């Protein structure tokens, strides 16, 4: 049985003035999947998400969200946590959440009780009657996340959901997203911190300068990028790294403080090299490491010619004076 698609993008393109923010993007997110959209700042992630949500209209291309040609027709089944998020400062927390739920047609007698349960779940029991402006920034972010899920959506779109959260709340948010995913919700989230995507998603889409450069399952990416680096820490801090450079199968040794990174020669078998290295210098630690998504990203980006005029990694998006909206900047 084929799983229906929650999101389908075909040849989506968006320009702001002279700048191409999203370039002919194709993407299919099946229902029930947990997709991570990664890429540096200004890559076009927010613009893509805004087009999925029909907050921005594409210049070209077609899209389908939850089986509808526009998210406007399926808004009530979508939960969205934008990167530029805020609250009505003077509104009370409970009122704000109820208002957002009702705007998404999730009314009914159980709404207030559900809001209270959710607030308890995110350690915010008792803030229901407080004004939003009385909450700390972290608490406000958790309330904003609740506003995205309080109406029990079928599709959850999160734009940089971990930005500004402390490690404890980052873990809580990961748990909440995982819970929603287990409930059957399709989750699409964007982040420029690739470790977050590695921890959470099962499928990764990389965007660079408005173009999709990778669209694959995380497990397949890992399978393709086999471990070719050994991290080594000598037992004797005075040991010389040059000795390992002479070990057969080691192509290169780079030293960062007490940690040495050994790049394996193309044909070398990792197990034999580790044995030989450990024999040469007694190790405190020796570990075969996988390339991180960040390594994969840089590997892909460095292999591509810089032919397009899109925004470079880390660069801001189009300015505010063009004919269309620029990516919002705080």
């Amino acid at each position, binding site marked *: 049985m084929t799983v229906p698609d929650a999101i389908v993008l075909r040849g989506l393109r968006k320009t702001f003035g002279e700048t191409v923010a999203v370039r002919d993007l194709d993407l299919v997110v099946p229902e029930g999947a947990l997709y991570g959209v990664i890429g540096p700042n200004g890559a076009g992630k927010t613009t893509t998400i*805004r087009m999925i*949500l*029909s*907050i*921005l209209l594409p210049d070209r291309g077609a899209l389908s969200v939850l089986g509808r040609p526009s998210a*406007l027709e399926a*808004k*009530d089944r*979508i*939960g*969205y946590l*934008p990167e*530029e*998020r*805020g*609250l*009505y*400062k*003077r*509104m009370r927390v409970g009122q704000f959440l109820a*208002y*957002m739920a*009702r*705007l*998404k*047609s999730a009314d009914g007698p159980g709404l207030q009780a559900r809001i209270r349960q959710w607030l308890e779940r995110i350690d915010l029991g008792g803030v229901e009657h407080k004004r939003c402006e009385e909450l700390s920034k972290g608490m406000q972010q958790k309330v*904003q996340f609740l*506003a*995205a899920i309080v109406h029990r959506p079928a599709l959850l779109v999160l734009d940089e959901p971990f930005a500004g959260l402390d490690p404890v709340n980052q873990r809580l948010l990961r748990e909440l997203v995982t819970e929603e995913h287990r409930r059957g919700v399709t989750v699409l989230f964007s982040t420029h911190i690739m470790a977050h995507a590695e921890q959470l998603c099962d499928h990764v889409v990389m965007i660079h300068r408005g173009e999709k450069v990778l669209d694959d399952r995380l497990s397949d990416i890992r399978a393709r990028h086999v471990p070719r680096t050994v991290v080594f820490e000598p037992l004797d801090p005075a040991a010389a790294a040059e000795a390992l450079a002479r070990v057969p199968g080691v192509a290169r040794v780079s030293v960062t403080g007490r940690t040495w990174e050994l790049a394996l020669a193309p044909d070398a078998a990792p197990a034999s090299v580790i044995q030989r290295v450990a024999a040469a210098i007694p190790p405190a630690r020796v570990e075969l490491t996988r390339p991180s998504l960040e390594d994969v990203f840089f590997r892909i980006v460095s292999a591509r010619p810089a032919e397009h005029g899109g925004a470079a990694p880390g660069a801001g998006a189009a*300015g*505010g*004076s063009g*004919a*269309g*909206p*620029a990516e*919002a*900047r*705080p």
Partner: protein
Amino acid sequence: MKKVLRVAKREFVATAGTKAFILGILVLPLVIGVLMLVIPRMAMEDPPAIEGRVAVIDPTGRVAAGLSAYLEPARIAQRRRQAFERMQEAMPPALRTASGMGGRGGSAGRKVAGSLAGAVPRLEIVTIGAGIGVEQAKQALTAAAPQERPARPDLALVVVHQDAVQRQPGADRFGTYDLFVRAKLDDRVIEEIQDGMRDSIVGARLSQAGLDRTQIEALTTVGRVKSRTVTAQGEGRTNEVLNRLIPMALMALLLMSVLTSGQYLLTTTVEEKTNRVVEVLLSAVSPMELMAGKILGQFAVGLLMLALYLGLGLIALLTFASLGLLDPALILFLAVFYLLAYFSLGAFMAAIGSAVNEMREAQGLMMPVMFVVMIPWLLWLPISRDPNSLLAVALTFVPPLGSFVIMLRLASSTPPPLWQTLLAIAAGAAGVWASLWFAARVFRIGLLMYGKPPSLATLVRWARSG
């Protein structure tokens, strides 16, 4: 539509449910009420008693005595008392009671009568002989009061012309007099001297001509009567003040409601954008639903203000027994033209709010709105004096200005023909359509635009490209 109404409800509650709004809406009638009670009382405070000398050079020898008699304190007090009684006569009974001036028996009335007797100027008329020249006499007006009478300085110098009482042979006209006064002399004293001179010279001329002054005054005096307005509800005293005030009050009410609710719309839109709550909202409603909800919510806020102030106005008219002066159809027209004016200006203000990053940036873009709002104030007098002039008729069909102009005209003594009212409604509706079209396009683009504040030309470009 359900979402639009939800947004509208929140907008209404978030605006009209705040303490600031409730206090604000009550402050205006309170201030007006307090002023109505306090100003008459303040006006009745004792004026400073002025003492001094008025020098007269009178070559005719027949004017100074009359002036001296006219300026006697007892006669001044009597004249003021008569003026007060005339003013009291013209005042609506309810206002007279409210301001504490209820007849001679009223506390304020008693106070006025008392103060009139005690605080009148005490002027001593001094006749200067012909031996002293005018220039020399004038010097006393700039000098300090002499030591022997420090509290009674020289206040004025009157120089009566030689032919003031008797014409020169062959001349058509009589001569008059010159009046020189000390700097910063109270204008009421100057008026008293002028009136006294007129009275004295006229008396002298009549006497010279051998005429009986009492008889002439009797022959030339016709008492001024108050007109009585006849309406379907009966007959009542015509109230010229209210007749003139009602058109202006209706227009002011319309302007105030439109401007206040439009300003709230601008503020809340800017706030939503500044708070970054707007994108959260856009995940639940479309930009059009958001804009429509906000406009409707603030429409209700303005309607609430309109109803409240109109209700207070009607109560005031009822108190003055002048309810018949307000045609009930005017209230209906007020609601219709409020709707048209608000939707035109409000939509524009919502568009401005969506385009800017903070309130300060909105000021420049608000110029067209302010311009539209200023014109009815500037043209109030010419339009109310001639409600069917070419200017008034032409402006009636220029939205959103027409809504304000036609309210002035409808409430005037010569209301416009029905076709003009209907055409004004049609023009207003077209204005609303254009304004909503413009606002919808700007709103969608502006909401997510941060950074450089746009100019009016940029908004027009967005509207055309949107």
